[in-house]
């Protein structure tokens, strides 16, 4: 099976066309029809608005799932997380030939190492960019750093794309992504009133990881129209927290076992959605200066261990999600060897135990298929909650 087909989601119909396209075809079409260059982006958080404003297509690289393939498979030791290992194997084996550059956000020690390994020892010649996150609580030094880092990345991307980032362009891009966020928030918060099953819903939400944002906006807006006025989901509501719903089969297992994801704390999905209600100050995106707005939005995002959120903030966030959704249990879908998430697990478990909320800790390795044991665990958990 060709590598690009494994890198999440099968072929889809993009709203601007009528035929099924794969991710690779979409990238090529964007270049041919619109002159847009593509930048592969490693997980997790990055200022996507800047790429959109510079007419760059961001293509997120979450894997591909399964054992790493190719010559580069052994370059990272087996105790490094699958995300980094698979990504390196993918990049070094020509999987990224379809894109023009790569962006490495400084998510953790492993991605940090991957960035220098791929760029300096990689043996593949695409332009590399990095984006560092401030690792610490809200401090004024963190704010000025994030703004400086965003501007620095923007300058590099300007040179790369051949466009100039005028404030008006940035402003438009911010508005576009705010609109997308609003629809995503409506879908996630109104989950019980959506008739779609999780596999279908998540396939839709995750297409935002690589579709040109305007194309994604169209389909997200259309999906919102299917929200009913009362709950239609019959299954057991659960909250799932983790990085990414891979293998996608996990959602099918949950579905068949009679449960659905009523509240989402996935870094790839829920932890990126900035809601108006979340921000303490003026509504996110309200300031006049687009750069200031971008920084506000950065700090208003839901807490994530890879942005060094205070675990107490994560506990509060989960509490709010549980209240809003009525979820009866929590699945902590952690990635093996992932330090940021694994350090939070005991604190989250303690809080959930204090609230008498059952927890299932499911440790994955971005495997291509769920093991029989993992399937049993999920089914047993749902049986327990029923």
């Amino acid at each position, binding site marked *: 099976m060709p590598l690009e087909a494994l890198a999440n989601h099968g072929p889809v119909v993009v709203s601007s066309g009528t035929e099924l396209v794969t991710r690779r075809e979409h990238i090529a079409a964007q270049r041919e029809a619109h002159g847009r260059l593509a930048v592969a982006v490693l997980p997790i958080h990055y200022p996507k608005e800047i790429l959109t404003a510079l007419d760059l297509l961001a293509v997120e690289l979450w894997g591909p799932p399964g054992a790493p393939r190719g010559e580069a498979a052994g370059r990272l030791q087996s105790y490094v997380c699958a995300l980094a290992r698979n990504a390196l194997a993918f990049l070094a084996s020509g999987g990224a030939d379809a894109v023009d550059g790569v962006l490495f956000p400084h998510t953790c020690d492993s991605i940090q190492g991957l960035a220098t390994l791929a760029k300096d020892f990689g043996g593949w010649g695409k332009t590399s960019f990095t984006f560092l996150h401030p690792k610490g609580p809200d401090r004024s030094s963190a704010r000025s750093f994030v703004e400086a880092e965003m501007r620095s990345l923007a300058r590099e991307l300007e040179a790369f794309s051949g466009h100039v980032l005028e404030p008006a362009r940035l402003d438009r891009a911010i508005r576009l992504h705010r609109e997308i966020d609003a629809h995503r928030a409506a879908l996630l918060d109104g989950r019980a009133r959506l008739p779609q099953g999780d596999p279908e819903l998540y396939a839709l939400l995750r297409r935002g990881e690589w579709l040109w944002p305007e194309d994604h906006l169209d389909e997200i807006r259309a999906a919102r129209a299917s929200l009913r006025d009362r709950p239609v989901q019959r299954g057991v509501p659960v909250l799932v927290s983790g990085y990414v719903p891979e293998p996608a089969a996990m959602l099918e297992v949950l579905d068949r076992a009679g449960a659905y994801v009523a509240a989402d704390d996935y870094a790839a999905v829920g932890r990126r959605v900035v809601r108006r209600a979340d921000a303490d100050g003026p509504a996110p995106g309200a300031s006049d200066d687009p750069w200031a707005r971008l920084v506000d939005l950065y700090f208003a995002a839901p807490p994530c261990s890879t942005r060094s959120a205070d675990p107490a903030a994560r506990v509060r966030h989960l509490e709010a999600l549980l209240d809003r959704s009525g979820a009866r249990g929590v699945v902590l879908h952690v990635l093996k060897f992932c330090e940021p998430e694994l350090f939070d697990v005991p604190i989250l478990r303690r809080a959930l135990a204090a609230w008498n909320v059952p927890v299932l800790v499911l440790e994955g390795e971005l495997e291509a298929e769920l093991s029989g044991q993992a399937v*049993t665990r999920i089914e*047993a958990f749902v*049986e327990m909650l029923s």
Partner: protein
Amino acid sequence: MSGAVAIGVDVGSTTCKVVAVDAAGRIVAHRVEPTDPRIEPQVDRLLEAVRAEAGPDAPVGATGYGRKRVRAGRALTEITCHARGAFARVGCPGVLVDMGGQDTKVIRIGAAGEVLDFAMNDKCAAGTGRFLEVILGRLRVPLAEVAEQVARAARAVPVSSTCTVFAESEVISLVASGEPLEGIAKGLHQALASRVAALVRSAAGGGEVFMSGGVALNTAMVAALGEALRRPVRVLPEPQLVGALGAALSCAAVHLA
């Protein structure tokens, strides 16, 4: 012919168990066999045998890793079924430790027999019965005799490797350097018990500790687990059949309702 109201099938990775229960929940017929890779014909044959003894019409509930391949009315995970079966035997809450050939489960059971929490061993064999089987097999100590050997040991020879394969080489070295077989066997049991005890702690809860599964027939293992937990461990009657019993009872409950 006794009136079986339901049949439970537990297709484990090592052994296949079939149990028929009557209206009072008593086991009226059962079979246990090593699991054949061709599960369907084996299950059909076992069901036929049990039905011949206990009644042809009873509905079937399935559990175990092979449960989806059984033509059954109802398939439930072995967590739910083991809790059900254990509670039917003891009638009180507690922690069930089920040690099978290839996996180990810990289930916290509530006052109404419900599953409160559960934990399963990681993908590796070192926390399961397989650990003992492989290494004792290498030492040519039959499983049936090992409890006696362990009881004779003056002291345990510690085995520190957390991987079955590495533990095997460690044990070979120990034998070569003259350590007594009984002591090594005792050390192996302690090593396994400490891993299982860690799993018990992760599912938390006080209360009585019960044991089921094939490994519960090994009295040395029961004793080692009791020491590691510092609590008494009660082995359930017919420990290998607990899962199948639970599957049968769940099936019966659905059909009576």
